[in-house]
């Protein structure tokens, strides 16, 4: 589903966020990107969502080389990815249901279909009773669940989340993680960037540990297959050369 090959990312200010990252995440897998802040977790997510482009190397999403996607094609590309943010990024001037409906409206679904799917998504995150509320009337944990409902409402094959539990207390954080786990159980590929190592210790999932723009460890994963040789040298356990 996701394949990074020798990806380098250098920002205009000269900071090198990624220095030759290679990894592969299979379809339907749940994977955690961990590491200190500044290790490159967010950069990887931005490259997946085409918010940023790699300086060198290649990123494949769903067997498509993202380098081949022109700016005009980005909106269509993003519709197959659900994104969850640490700060939720909800629109505060409209009710919860309208927030969740946004991706479907953009994709041009008919109204009846939208209503049905929005209710289903809100039901999945346990917020069906709050569909007419405004985001600011909800607790932080509830707002995060609205964000998740919005990310999954269009049933994207790939879900990415940047520090989704960053603002939550431990119990709520576990709840949110379990929610992500459930989506991966039904076949959605889920990639979560988090620095909360204690939290992810509770889940038996793939873990990609980053430090200073490099992959320093990978655990709990099926052995990666199509990783290039130089990328494998930088990874702790992906010794399988093509």
């Amino acid at each position: 589903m996701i394949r990074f090959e020798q990806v380098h990312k250098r920002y205009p200010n000269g900071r090198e966020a990624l220095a030759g990252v290679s990894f592969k995440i299979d379809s339907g897998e749940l994977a955690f990107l961990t590491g200190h802040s500044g290790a490159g977790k967010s950069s990887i997510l931005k490259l997946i969502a085409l918010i940023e482009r790699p300086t060198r190397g290649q990123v494949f999403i769903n067997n498509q080389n993202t380098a081949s996607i022109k700016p005009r094609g980005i909106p269509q590309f993003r519709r197959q990815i659900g994104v969850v943010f640490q700060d939720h990024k909800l629109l505060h001037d409209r009710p919860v249901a309208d927030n969740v409906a946004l991706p479907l409206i953009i994709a041009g679904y008919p109204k009846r279909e939208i209503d049905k799917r929005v209710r289903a998504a809100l039901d999945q995150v346990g917020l069906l009773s709050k569909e007419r509320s405004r985001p600011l009337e909800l607790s932080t944990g509830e707002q995060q669940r609205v964000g998740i409902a919005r990310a999954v409402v269009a049933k994207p094959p790939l879900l990415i989340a940047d520090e989704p539990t960053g603002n939550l207390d431990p119990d709520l954080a576990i709840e949110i993680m379990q929610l992500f786990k459930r989506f991966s159980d039904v076949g959605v590929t889920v990639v979560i960037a988090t620095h909360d190592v204690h939290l992810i210790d509770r889940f038996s999932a793939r873990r990609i540990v980053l430090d200073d723009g490099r992959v320093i460890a990978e655990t709990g994963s099926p052995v990666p297959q199509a990783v290039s040789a130089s990328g494998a040298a930088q990874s702790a356990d992906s010794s399988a050369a093509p």
Partner: protein
Amino acid sequence: MPGAVKTWLARHAQTLVGSLGRTVQNPLATLMTVAVIAVALALPLFLNVLLQNARTATTNWNQAFDLSVYLDKKAGSERTQALAKQLRIRADVAAVRVITAEQALKDFRDGSGFGKALDTLTDNPLPNTLIVTPTLAASTLEGTLALKTSIAALADVDTVQLDTEWVQRLNAMLEVLRRVVWLTGGLLGLGVVLVVGNTIRLDILNRRAEIEVMKLVGATDGFARRPFLYGGVWYGLGGGLGAVILVAAAVAVLAGPVEHLAGLYGSPMRLRGLQVLTAAGVLGVAVALSWLGSWIAATRHIRAVEPS
């Protein structure tokens, strides 16, 4: 695919109404923008109303250069009628009206306000007069001039007067005024585009976060731009309505004095206000200009908003 078309139409209608809601949410800023558009459009529109009225008032003078034929004082009523008859059979004359000296004096007494002074005159200083209207074919400047020369040569004719010069001057002035209307219209129209563009640019800056979110969940630039375009349409509609109201008010204020002034010149002229068709045209132009302004601003600035 009628279903898809229906969905598409429903979305547009929803965006249209939604954008109206948002402009109303910020009443002061919206009112300012609408007022600027209204004033900018009202000025050329008002000039145009004046121009149209001036044209209407002078149309009669333009169509036919009537010749005033003043007869010799010695020519009595019989010879006057004979001359009129003689002129009527000419191929280049459409009509001849006889104004006797008595009639002319009476008209002058009634119209000029010198009634009392005229009473002191012992005899009528005015001659019999023929008002000769050339046929349409002979109504060219050359045609009337030829007619003038020909009539002037007839017996009993004292002078023939043809007032074409001031009509030409008036026409030239109206042409200048027409250009002025177009120039101010063009400049102020450009102003409307810029004002709306700037307003939309600020709207976009204010809602940057929202646009970023939309783009992140797969919105095209066109989708993100749509509410701003409809916002521009509302600004234009409001500004156009404002301009029509301003001009109608100005016409109402001027109607009385103009009628009075025209009355003093013995003319029944009335100030004609905006016609329904013109008003509709103004609304159309206002909407088009402000749509253009918002399109330019939204296209430029929404492209620049990228999630980070």
